[in-house]
């Protein structure tokens, strides 16, 4: 819903100077939290998320264990200083929902059946929010899982699409997110184009929905390349004896 008067697209350019289908500058680094079994920091423009993975490790108390596979636990949270008005620390209804869809986005990628009775914990913390925080969390969490050596079918790529001022766009920033006609956050495994997270809110024709989903999958391949580069970069730095 548009809450401001100012145009969000002028002469085909967005408020941050991007073209409609242009993704913000991406930074990805793995192994940023020493204590964690795997970790990653991902930045899309001014949106910055750090994720850490602990496990696979035995799940306690025992009655929560699944004898056939590992349990994945996800927690998405926002640092109080990540948004203009201080956010109350701790989970709210929004972050509880996002934690759930984050888990559903990652589970299809992980060989959970390799670790019966275990738990894999994934924590995603938004350090700085400027739109598209849940999909940035997917990128960070997916990299952190790979960094932890958890066997995966593929990396999960997160990217958002939407519509502002009548134009279909990719990778919404905060102002676009708050004033868009529609917002579609997505997560998917690029190999085989398997969609694992799909949400939408707004007002779109079915053709527009399909077009945006297609745009996100196609542009997501660039994000996928960045993820692979970030994983390679960590191991290239390490000295081999």
């Amino acid at each position: 819903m548009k809450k401001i008067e100012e145009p969000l697209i002028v002469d085909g350019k967005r408020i941050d100077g991007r073209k409609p289908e242009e993704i913000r500058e991406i930074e990805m680094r793995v192994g940023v939290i020493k204590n964690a079994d795997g970790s990653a920091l991902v930045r899309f423009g001014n949106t910055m998320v750090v994720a850490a993975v602990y496990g696979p490790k035995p799940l306690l108390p025992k009655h929560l264990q699944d004898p056939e596979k590992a349990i994945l636990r996800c927690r998405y949270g926002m640092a109080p200083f990540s948004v203009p008005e201080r956010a109350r620390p701790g989970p709210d209804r929004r972050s509880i929902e996002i934690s759930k869809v984050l888990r559903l986005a990652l589970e299809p990628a992980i060989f959970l059946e390799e670790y019966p009775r275990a738990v894999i914990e994934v924590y995603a913390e938004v350090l700085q929010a400027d739109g598209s925080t849940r999909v940035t969390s997917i990128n960070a969490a997916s990299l952190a899982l790979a960094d932890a050596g958890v066997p995966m079918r593929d990396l999960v790529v997160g990217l958002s699409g939407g519509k502002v001022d009548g134009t279909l766009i990719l990778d919404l920033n905060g102002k676009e997110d708050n004033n868009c006609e529609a917002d579609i956050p997505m997560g998917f495994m690029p190999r085989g184009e398997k969609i694992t997270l799909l949400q939408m809110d707004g007002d779109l024709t079915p053709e527009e929905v399909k077009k945006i989903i297609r745009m996100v999958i196609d542009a997501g391949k660039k994000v996928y390349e960045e993820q692979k580069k970030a994983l390679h970069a960590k191991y290239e730095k390490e000295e081999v004896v």
Partner: protein
Amino acid sequence: MMEDYVLELIRDGRRVDGRKLDELRPVKVETGIIKRAEGSAKVSLGDTVVLVGVKLDIGEPFPDTPNQGILITNAEFSPIASPDFESGPPGEDAIELARVVDRGIREGKIIDFEKLCIKEGEKVWMVFIDIHVLNHKGNLVDASALAAMAALLDAKFPKYDPEKDELDRETLEGKLPINHKVVTVTLAKLNGKMLVDPIVDEEKVAEATLTIGVKEDGKVSSMQKSGGRGWFSYDEVSKAIDLAISKSKELLKHLE
């Protein structure tokens, strides 16, 4: 095992309750059943029964939308409704359901929020949608969204006296300003096949579910992938959208 049986039937395009893959359960909508609520509706989708009450109150607007009313949606999965539900504060599934119903209504601009403004920046109407599950036999989202929409259409304002700043809840006047109608259609993927309006036995073995909010003009106002540990292909999503739009017409008929 029920799970194997469900999956085996689906392989031949059949379902445990004998429905076709794209067939909804019988739908029943009753409104105005809770006298204390400003609007109410009870919806059955087969054996799934959901009750929604709409309450109206006066409050302060949010600072970023000083001339708009407020919508708050909550869902209770009461232990009355299923042996799988426990008492206590809403869990992640109840929170997710309430937020999906809320998004369909909010982002589809179903309510004319500007007409809920009494005095800009100071007083606006607050609309509370409370979803109570009475019997859970699957697809709570579609039953809840339909009941929420029916209860909104049923809702009337209590008389407001601006001098005394008091609400007279005995006197109801004027309907809520509703722009359009919205319903959700949920599809589940089982054994690679898509079916509508899943029952609990189907939800338990579903690879994933997709809920699509459709307005009466055929536009999409919300989507949510949930349930299961699976994924959808682009083609599956694309077909699901088309099927949801066609099925939405059947549900919308019950709101006339």
